[in-house]
């Protein structure tokens, strides 16, 4: 702890001053999930201070938001949280639709829910896979990716892209479900549920994994609320808060699903394992939602009437619309003065808020734990830096 001894004559005493080691972790580091940079001050293996440095992927999202038309901006939203592009599309489209007062056809709403929940599963798979990678378990990552590829195949089938979909459009969705698509989702869900068990056996209840994550990086509920944590990170700290239930958007109020929270099964409430476990359980809940949506999906139009895509104009006004992204509360705050272009488009990115808690929870942990903690809050740098 940087115990500085008063300077003494060097010929009589051995100088035993110790010094904190300053380490620069990132932007190119295997465990930073992109281009996050964390400056770490460490006393041996113990982290004494940490300072995240972001902005290495700043891509001018908000400037572009006020420079291009609403329709043109939808593809950009894909690229902010590129692991959950559908959810981002949904958030932005809902925000614009709220301003434009559009009525969305039933079928489009159901397709939106199905694709967003599929994408949520894909995103959580990625989160737990890379989390395993952070802790040195390589194989779960590949298994997660194998399952994720199946989801990508389904999404690719309906919209032609693997990662950046631009599928949910203002006023509805891009196109109707292809023949056999809905049945294929059912097939996938039947395949996927046992795989979740496999993942639990391989990683979740692995003794080493539990030892590495339980009681590590504990975020108390008070801290979580203070630092604006949302999504699985807030739920991992024991708060039953989900915008899908607490501020329902789209048609989420029609589905029955549980909101899993961290209960400290393996350690303390709000530790890394709880956050991880919430994600695993949420995938199961998403499967439930998709199954219900597949049962209920009606026939009909997929695009609202009267949306002229080439000259889509919004009414003047300002509105904040939040959706439950896989990572937390994704909000779009739009100020429109009428016309095709927003006056201001502000994005509330969940990962941005989550990162700010690192300064609070990293100190005192060991170096290996620091990696585990950064992995457990599941950040996407595209969203942090925008």
């Amino acid at each position, binding site marked *: 702890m940087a115990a500085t001894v008063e300077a003494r004559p060097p010929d009589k005493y051995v100088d035993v001053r110790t010094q904190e080691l300053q380490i620069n972790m990132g932007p190119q580091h295997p465990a930073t999930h992109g281009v996050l940079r964390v400056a770490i001050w460490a006393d041996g*293996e113990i982290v004494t201070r940490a300072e995240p440095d972001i902005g290495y992927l700043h891509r001018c999202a908000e400037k572009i938001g006020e420079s291009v038309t609403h329709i043109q901006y939808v593809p950009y939203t894909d690229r902010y949280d590129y692991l959950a592009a559908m959810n981002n599309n949904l958030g932005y489209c809902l925000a614009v639709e709220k301003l434009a007062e559009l009525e969305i056809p039933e079928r489009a709403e159901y397709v939106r829910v199905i694709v967003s929940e599929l994408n949520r599963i894909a995103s959580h798979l990625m989160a737990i896979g890379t989390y395993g990678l952070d802790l*040195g378990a390589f194989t779960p990552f590949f298994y997660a990716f194998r399952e994720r590829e199946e989801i990508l195949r389904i999404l690719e089938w309906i919209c032609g892209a693997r990662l950046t979909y631009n599928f949910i459009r203002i006023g509805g969705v891009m196109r109707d479900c292809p023949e056999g698509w809905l049945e294929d989702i059912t097939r996938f869900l039947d395949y996927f549920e046992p795989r979740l068990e496999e993942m639990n056996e391989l990683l979740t209840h*692995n003794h*080493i994994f539990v030892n590495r994550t339980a009681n590590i990086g504990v975020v108390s509920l008070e801290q979580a609320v203070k630092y604006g944590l949302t999504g699985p990170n807030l739920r991992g700290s024991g708060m039953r808060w989900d915008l899908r239930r607490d501020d329902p958007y789209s048609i989420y109020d029609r589905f029955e699903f549980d909101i899993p929270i961290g209960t400290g099964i393996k350690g303390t409430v709000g530790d890394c394992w709880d956050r991880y476990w919430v994600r695993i359980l949420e995938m199961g809940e998403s499967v439930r939602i998709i199954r219900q949506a597949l049962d209920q999906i009606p026939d009909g139009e997929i695009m609202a009437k009267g949306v002229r895509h080439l000259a889509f104009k919004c009414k003047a006004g300002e509105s904040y619309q939040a959706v439950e992204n896989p990572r937390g509360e994704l909000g779009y705050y739009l100020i429109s003065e009428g016309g095709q272009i927003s006056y201001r488009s502000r994005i509330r990115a969940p990962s941005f808020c989550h990162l700010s808690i690192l300064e609070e929870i990293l100190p005192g942990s060991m170096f*290996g734990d620091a990696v585990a903690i950064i992995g457990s809050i599941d950040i996407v740098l595209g969203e942090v830096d925008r």
Partner: protein
Amino acid sequence: MERLVGALEGLGESAFALSLLMCAGVVLGFVGIWPLFAVWLERKASADFQSRLGPMYVGGFHGWLQTLADGIKLAFKEDLIPAQANRVLFWIAPAVAFCGAFATMVVIPIAQGVEIVNLDIGIFFILAISSVGTIGVVMAGWASNNKWSLYGAVREAAQLVSYEIPIALSLMIPIIAVGNLRLGHIVGFQCAGPEDAGFVYLSHHGWLLFYSPWTLAAGLIYFVASLAECKRAPFDLPEAESELVSGFHTEYSGLRFSFFFLEEYVFMFVVSIVGALVFLGGWQPLPFVSFQFDNPLMKLIGAGILLGKAVFLVWVQIWLRWTLPRLRVDQVMTMGYKYLTPLAMLTLMGMALYQYWGCRYIPGIL
């Protein structure tokens, strides 16, 4: 080697030097070829665990030349030395690390009576020389002038020091039974039979792993500790990729890096073959039924069996690496000092008492 010297007696005084060179050539050749196979095995095995294919195209059949291509590439890659690194230490560190691993090969008998040096302190020699590699790693970490490397080196030093104890203690346990440090004698003990035994016979003691509960425990302790000695997962902290970028060899490139690479795989082989010799009966294929391995053909078969056992143990190491997450550094220490070392001491004591109270006088009993 003595026999080789004898065979080359006609050459006069240079016979010793020549046989030395030949032995060195054999060891080096093996050390050069083994990693080619081991790395390929590791890549293919890991691919299999991860539902991938692994190298497929290089060299045609299932990428069997993949490692050779890697080697050529590494050999012809620029050799960077960071400007602020300690040049001398940086230069010799890989060599020291590598020597530590491959010098142990000289005492390993590959078949009955086929070894380079039949050293009377065989196991001690292996334990002592294999620790030299650690010095190389620490030198590399220190000389690189990189904080990640330094972390890796310090972790390596701490880990190796703590795991030397259980590994040495667990090797003492079979020695209590055998009463000899020569590796050849240890195998001989495991296939000792009646004087007038035929080609196939029931051995008195069987494999040392099944000799007594204490040796079984010792075998397991040895395996776990040897994982830590080879820096293999779940103890791969010195080069923990997601934490320390590449650990102690972060600054190494090209050929020098490949030396660390070779060292790791050669050392994996060494601990595996020692395990096979000491606990798994060496070249004896079955636990309690022994064969006479005295003619050259049988010796060749025996060598094949021994290599097979060693490769199997290496494969188990690979299997564990691609399955388990990594331990944290304090957990590694806890494991070493709180569990493995006391356990090894307890086992040692148990074995000593077991031997003392008569079990050694009842031949053939477990």
